[in-house]
């Protein structure tokens, strides 16, 4: 199916007449949307929407893939996508850790080291290969009008909500407190240790490479990694917390559940005063929700500009069912793991949280399984 998507994307690019009027209208709509968000929720929300547009545009412009980056390395030993991820994390970390060490008003992505983290990250790593999209991937591909990811997203929202709802029971399996490497080693120590670890992984990937340019050719993906790092630091500076995706989707689910009459006031997660306040307030007040909306809009604009909007997808009924089910699994497991590839892997490591590294190891192991599962389901390419 993915091969079909790629072929269709190429055809779409060839067919594209790059209608400048429509693209200008999309840019205008994005500006109007940012102004509307500012009017409805304040300048901070408007800025976060604009940052989200930047995330979506950078991701969609080069098809920046966390999922694909790992899969292509697992299958082809092409490290390009994987190396771009490490560059993104390293660059963001170089600005984020000194900020966190000196500015108490900013918060990192520190989460407990729990059994649920390992289980959730492993399952998420496998599921993201089946769905061909992680947290950011599912969102930006939905923005690009990929029907497969449009099918994944509702399940992702439901799964994120339910995962957070049940999180206390999963934490009862065993949990240690969050570990901030910035607190444990100091800003300099955390930076040196983590940058050395990223460099060691990059060197290993480069030494064991068998092919390059299988998927990403040229420097575009590295330029996108730099742009994403800049937007991620801006996100921290404006929101006061790191970039995340899954929490926002779960909040959308919590709002829908509340409208349907589900009383969440006694729930261990959604019953917390902060979460009850967010359920009662407009979702535009939630930084993660606002950047998610901006991300969808940015991906739409980038896809329209590149002529890759709405790729044609050929999938069997089983594969469509798999998309919906996998969406639920992705959302649920991401909440057990305290984030997806963005909230845990990227934000965790770049803010010096030990849980980010555990997520990385468990999700990568899950991805190795997921790539095989993907082949068995006939989702090759």
């Amino acid at each position, binding site marked *: 199916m993915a091969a079909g998507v790629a072929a269709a994307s190429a055809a779409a690019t060839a067919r594209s007449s790059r209608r400048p009027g429509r693209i200008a209208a999309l840019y205008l709509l994005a500006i109007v949307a940012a102004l509307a968000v500012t009017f409805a*929720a*304040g*300048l*901070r929300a408007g*800025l976060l929407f604009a940052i989200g547009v930047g995330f979506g545009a950078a991701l969609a412009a080069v098809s920046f893939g966390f999922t694909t980056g790992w899969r292509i390395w697992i299958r082809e030993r092409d490290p390009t996508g994987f190396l771009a991820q490490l560059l993104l994390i390293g660059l963001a970390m170089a600005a984020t850790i000194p*900020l966190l060490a000196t*500015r108490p*008003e*900013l*918060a990192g*992505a520190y*989460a407990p080291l729990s059994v649920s983290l390992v289980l959730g990250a492993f399952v998420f790593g496998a599921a993201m290969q089946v769905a061909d999209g992680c947290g950011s991937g599912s969102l930006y591909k*939905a923005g690009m*009008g990929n*029907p497969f990811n*449009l099918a994944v997203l509702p399940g992702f929202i439901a799964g994120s909500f339910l995962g*957070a709802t049940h*999180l206390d029971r999963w*934490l009862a399996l065993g949990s240690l407190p*969050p570990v901030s490497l910035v607190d444990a080693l100091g800003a300099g120590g955390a930076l040196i240790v983590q940058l050395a670890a990223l460099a060691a992984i990059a060197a290993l990937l480069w030494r064991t490479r068998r092919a390059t340019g299988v998927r990403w050719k040229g420097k575009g993906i590295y330029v996108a990694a730099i742009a994403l790092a800049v937007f991620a630091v801006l996100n921290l*500076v*404006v*929101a*006061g*917390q*790191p970039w*995340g*995706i899954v*929490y926002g989707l779960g909040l*959308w689910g919590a709002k829908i559940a509340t409208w349907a009459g589900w009383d969440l006031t006694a729930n*261990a*997660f959604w019953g*917390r005063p*902060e979460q009850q*306040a*967010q359920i*009662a*307030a*407009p*979702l*535009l*007040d*939630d*930084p*993660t929700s606002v950047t998610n*909306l901006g991300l*969808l809009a940015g991906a739409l604009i980038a896809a329209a500009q590149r002529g890759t*909007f*709405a790729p*044609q997808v050929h999938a069997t009924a089983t594969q469509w069912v798999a998309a919906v089910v996998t969406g639920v699994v992705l959302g649920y497991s*991401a*909440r057990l793991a*305290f*984030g*997806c590839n*963005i*909230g*845990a892997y990227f*934000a*965790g490591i770049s803010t010096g949280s030990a849980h980010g590294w555990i997520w990385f190891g468990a999700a990568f192991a899950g991805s190795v399984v997921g790539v095989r599962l993907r082949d068995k389901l006939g989702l090759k390419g």
Partner: protein
Amino acid sequence: MSMRRGAWIALFWALLLGFVALDYVKSRTRHDPFAEPPPWALGHAASGRGGHCSSAPR
């Protein structure tokens, strides 16, 4: 782009924007432009209202 795919995408955006609008209408709190937080968190007190993927239950 086929009509069917276009219809699905239009439905997705209509549902999303409808959800945001409905949420805004149903919300029990309203944005007060004279009491909104500073444009960015850096250099200001934390607003303390947020949630993140790394948030754990009480």
